[in-house]
Each structure stands twice: as C-alpha cells, then as structure tokens.
C-alpha cells in the first residue's frame, strides 16, 4: 500500500509538471501581450513593467522562473488587479468553490446511492419508473438550464410566501449554498443513480448473495450488508471524474448565482485577459484534480486490495 501510494504520488507530480508546462507554452502562444488595449504607455514604462514581470527575458528563462515559482507555491501576480498575487485570489476564492463543490458531491453521492438502491429494490414498479424518468432529465438537461430554472423557482417561491426563504443569488451562509449546490450536483446525481442501479442489478445475481440467502440471512440484511455495500464500489471509482465535472459545472453555477468562487474569477480573468490569473488558476485546478483522482484511487485500493496488485 505504501509503495502504491508513493508511485501514484510520483506519477501525479509528473502530471502536474506536464499541466504546468502545457499551460505555460499555451499562454505563450496567445497573440498580443498584456499591454495591448491598455492606454498607450511610453516605451520606458513598458520596458519597466516587462522587467518587473520578467517578460523581457527569453521564453526558456521565463519558463524556468515560472516552474521554480510554482514549486515554491507562488502562482504569480494578477495583471488586472493591481498588486494582488494569484495566491491571494486563490486563497480567497477557492474555499468558496470548495464548499459549494463538497456540498454538491454530498448531494450527488447520497442521492445517487439512495435513488439507485431504490430503483433496484422496486425494479419496474412505479418508484423505479419515476426515478429513471428523472435520471433521463438529469442527464440530458444542461446545468445552466437547471441553474436558471432553479433561480426562477426561488423567485416565485419567495414572492408567494412574501419574504425571502432562500436568497436568489449571493453568498454568505448556508441558505445561499443549498440551491446552487443542488443544481450543481444534479447531473452527477443522475449519472450516479444510473450507475448504482446497474451495479445493484448485477450484484443481485452474484453467488455470495445466493449463499447468504440460502444461509437464511434476513432479506433486509442481505440488502444492506451484501448487496448495497458491494454495489457502492463502482460508484466510488467515478467520484474522481465527478469532482472534475462538478468543478466545471461550478463555472456556470457560480456565474449565475453570483457566487464569488474561483470559477467566477477565472471567467472574469479571461474577459480581462488577466494572463497571470489564467495561468495560475489553470495550474492550480489541474493540480487539484490530479490530487483528487489520486485520493480516489488510494481510497479504492484501500477498499479493494485487487487494485493494488495490478
């Protein structure tokens, strides 16, 4: 297990290096520079600014500086927000996105397992049919439509009741988080429900279930101990990719609900051509996703020893 962990971490480090390199060279190909479109600056000022940000150095040296800074945890400076470091922005924005994402994952995970189990339990009866219908909607309606509709529903509810039950936009306490997190988690929840259902149905026919039944284990116990536990395994494997898709969804949900997360700041940075923030955020997100995948892999290896031996 230790060796497996070390190996995965090393692989992860190399991957992060690749992401950083790809980001750097991609950004280097972007036409123009941060001074295009600004009001005209004198050549001396421009030279000074370039020297300050290291833009006068040859690309390879810039790349080296960029890499060594990254290793020291310095993600650069924002060009648009004067004298703010990207670290500052990430530190301020990321916790917001993280809370939203964790809530969404919790919603999606719990909902997915619960509904998946229900559909398998009531196979081809009305709970199954209704949930499958909802799953189909969840998979085929884009998150931004859910978000817009969610907001509209909130407006109507607040109007009907006469005071603000749940705020329509903004950020603050738990009341601001519930609806955005639910909207963010819906797509993943639908996906997990479907996965859980097929996994449950597959396990019903397994030998150990038949053995347990023939031993006289009560039906409820067979369901909870043997069927459910084993069916959850495949759900855990897709949690890693789910983190990625929920992060992606966060971009839209944060923008629609006016949540000051990292996704919102990235979209803003792109609109302002704030190269420092774009680069820093991309590498940070990339590293974060790699870490998530590794954690899920380790979790899975810990639960299922067969993975370690591969």
């Amino acid at each position, binding site marked *: 297990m230790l060796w497996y962990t070390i190996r995965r971490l090393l692989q992860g480090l190399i*991957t992060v290096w*690749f*992401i950083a390199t*790809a*980001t750097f060279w*991609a*950004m280097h*190909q*972007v*036409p*123009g520079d941060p001074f295009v479109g600004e009001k005209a600056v004198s050549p001396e000022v421009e030279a000074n600014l370039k020297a300050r940000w290291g833009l006068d150095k040859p690309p390879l040296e810039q790349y080296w500086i960029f890499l060594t800074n990254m290793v020291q945890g310095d993600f650069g400076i924002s060009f648009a927000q004067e004298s703010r470091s990207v670290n500052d922005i990430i530190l301020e924005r990321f916790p917001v996105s993280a809370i939203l994402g964790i809530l969404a994952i919790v919603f999606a995970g719990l909902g997915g397992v619960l509904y998946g189990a229900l559909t398998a339990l009531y196979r081809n009866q009305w709970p199954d049919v209704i949930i499958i219908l909802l799953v*189909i*909607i969840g*998979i*085929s*309606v*884009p*998150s*931004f*439509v859910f978000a*817009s509709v969610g907001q*509209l529903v909130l*407006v109507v509810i607040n109007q009907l009741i006469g005071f603000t039950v749940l705020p329509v936009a903004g950020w603050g306490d738990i009341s601001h988080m519930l609806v955005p997190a639910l909207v963010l988690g819906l797509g993943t929840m639908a996906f997990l429900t479907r996965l859980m259902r*097929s996994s449950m*149905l*597959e396990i019903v026919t397994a030998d150990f279930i038949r053995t347990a039944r023939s031993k006289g284990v009560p039906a409820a116990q067979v369901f909870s101990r043997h069927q459910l536990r084993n069916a959850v395994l495949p759900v855990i494997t897709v949690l890693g990719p789910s983190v*990625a898709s929920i*992060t*992606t969804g966060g*971009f*839209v949900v944060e*923008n*629609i609900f006016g949540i000051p997360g990292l996704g919102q700041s*990235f*979209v803003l940075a*792109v*609109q302002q*051509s704030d190269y420092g923030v*774009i680069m820093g*955020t*991309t590498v940070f*997100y*990339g590293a974060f*996703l*790699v870490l998530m*995948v590794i954690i899920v892999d380790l979790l899975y290896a810990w639960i299922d020893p067969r993975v370690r031996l591969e």
Partner: protein
Amino acid sequence: MISDLGVNDIGTYSFKRANVDLDREEISRPSLSYWQDAWLRIRSNKRTLASLCVVVFMVLVAAFGPSLWHFEFDSQDLNQTSKAPWSSRAMTVIEPYTPWVDRPAVSGWSDTGGPTNFEVVGFPSIEFVRLTWTPVQGATRYTVYRTIVDPEDGPFGLPLGTLIGESENAYEDRIDLEQDRYWYSVEATFADGSTASTTLPVEVSAATTLAGAIESQWVDSDSDLQPGDTLKTPWHPLGTDYLGRDMLARLMKGAQISLFIGIVAPLLFILLGVVYGSFAGFLGGKVDSLLMRFADFVVALPFLLFMILFKLVFGIGAGESGILPMLVALVLLSWPAAARLVRGQILQIREEGYIDASRLLGTKTPRLILRHMIPNTMGVILVTFTFAVPSTIFTEAFLSFIGMGVEPPIPSWGSMCNDGRKTMETTPHELIFPAIFISITVLAFNILGDGLRDALDARMRSTE
C-alpha cells in the same frame, strides 16, 4: 493398436478421407453477419428506433431548415422584440406621431378629494398614451405614475413625471410602452404636503405607422391601409428574441452549428484516437507505454480551462465564427479516451484465435489490421462516437453559454440560452426553446447510444 505403428509406417495411405455427409452439415438458416444482427436488434428496440428518428429529424432540420424558412437568423425587427409565440399578432395602423399641441383647456376645477375626470385622450397605443384630468384647486404640483399591476392603495409604480403648477391638466407618456394593461395614477400635491390621487386602468394596443410597417416589411410598399385599420405582423411560430430575430430561424441555424461541432469534432478526435491507439496497441512494448503515458497526461489537463485557453491561443478575428478554433481545441483535448479504448481492443484482439489462424494462413499485417482488427473494433468505436456526440454538444453549449464559444451573431443553442436567461421572468420562451432543443437532441443521442451498445457490444449489453 496405434502404439504398434512406428513413424515410418505412416504414409499418405493412412489418411483416408472419411465419409462426410454433406447434407447434414448444411446450415438451414441464413447466417447473420455482425451488422445484420445489430440491425435486427436495433429494429426490435422501439426506444432506439424513436431516438434514431429524432436524430435524423434534427439533422434534416439543420441541413435544410435555414434555407427553407423565410426568416434570416440575423435579420432584426426592433418593433417585434421578445414576442412570445402566443402573443397577439394584430397591430393597429396609426397616424405618424405629431407633438401634442391642442392640449385641452382648463374648463373647471375638482375639489381637494383628488383630480377628477381622469381619462385617455385619443387612441392609447405603444406610440403614446395621452392623459387628461380636471385640475385640483390649491394643488402645487401633479405627479403621474404608471404600473402594470393594480396599485389599489399600494405603491403607484414608476413615477413618469412631475408637473409644477395648479392648472396642469394633461400628460403624454411615451416611455417604453408595451402592449399591456397599465394603471396610471395622477397625484396632486398641495402646499401643506398632503396628497390626493386618482387611478385609471388603460389598455395599451400594439400600433405602428404605415411607414413603419412598410419599413419592417410587414406590408407591401403599395399597401392601401388607412390609420385605424389593423394588420397582422408576420408569424413567428416560436416567437422572437430580444432583438426581434425569429427564434425558429435562429434555432435551426443553431442546430447547424451545434450538430456540426457535435458530430464533426467526435469524428475527428475518434479518428485520431483510433490511429494513435492502434499504433500503440500494435507496436506494443516501450513505444506503447510511452504513447499511453502521453495520453494520460493529456487526460489530466483540466478540460474546460484548456478549451478556454485554446480559444485565447487561436484568437478570433473580427467577423469569424470561432467554430474552427473550437473544433481544433476539442480534437486536441478529447482524443485520448478513444485511443485508450482502441488500444485495449487491439491488445485483446491480437490474442484472439482467428488472428492466429489468419496469420497461419499467411495473411500480411496490413490486411490483418484492415480486415480483422479494425472491423472488430468498429462496434465499440461506433458506440463511443454516439456517446461522444451529446457530450460534445453539451461542451459547445456550455462554452457558448459563458461567452467563450461561438461568436455572435452566429447563434448557438448555448448562447441563445444565455440571452434568454436574462429575460426569463418576463419572456421565458427565449430560454425554454433552446433548452428544449439541447435536451431533446442530447437525450436522443444518449438513448441511441444505449441501443447501439446493446446491439453492437455483446459484453456491454445492459442487464435491463
């Protein structure tokens, strides 16, 4: 018996042809090829057939719709903005606007209970609403309000203007009028600060001048319509957007964009993945692990962020649609999944008995790949393709929604949703229709993918 025979005793005479009963060997039923079997399975699955029909319909709409429909996707009609499909098309022809010069003279006074005889002068239309009332003795100023809900005792709504003077008795409203029912209130304020008011509901009609109608091409230029006549504005079956562009035309043009990206991008990146993956799988060894390591790296790139990065890298000049950069970015980022899949398939097939058999018969490698390996991976590749289409349509819609996709005025379902979202409380149809188009298309491709997987891929056949 056999042990008695030495090797030298075996000769050609030892191998006598056994009697073969050829009739018994005959296969009485026609043997089905892989694709025939798949087609039979698809045909017997109603859901798959239905989704196939939807997909074909959408493709036809995208291919022929824009050229058949008489509205252009980018022609604006600013007199017909944000019209819902169910809103009235009738419009009254009115005289061209002239300033209100003959305002009524003051012919009497109301008492301090508030302005009386509050009424409309002339025809209340979206061009103007002219109001008059009998002034109140002792009033210092009058304030005119407008709202779209019955104010009763509540707030009067939007203050339109304040008229200073005791004898003011008329007001003309030309501020952003729409075809609707408005409640106008006129409030007299007295010297001591007390107020008294009167409210009047007014039904405002849609109206246009003849010149305006001709300019908007609602009627021919030699039309003999007189002021007071009504005309019918052109039929927009799905309404218009915030610039008065026909929604149906935009949705069909959007179908072109979304389906083009949604189908061409997966075709390209799966093709790239097939070449890459079969190379890796066939060459094997060090080359294979090196190639696949690189694929792992590309998978690890944060997809959406890099889609946006690439958009910046390629840069979009004025007048460009941004479709090509998006295609390139999608191909560059999405190929590894297909490559992994094909490599796995090739590795598996390489060990199959029929490959050995074919080799023994002397088949050369290229023919082996073309005749045996690729056809046997086609099913899986086709299924992957069908699932890649909806997710690519999603990606495109998503990017266009946050303004990082197709450039205006080219419509895409995603950017239309974004436009519609801004006015969803008053004109929800601008959001609902593009959302329905995306959802139905994505749903159809997903169900089709499920059906194809059941039909083509025996191992993945779902348990349902």
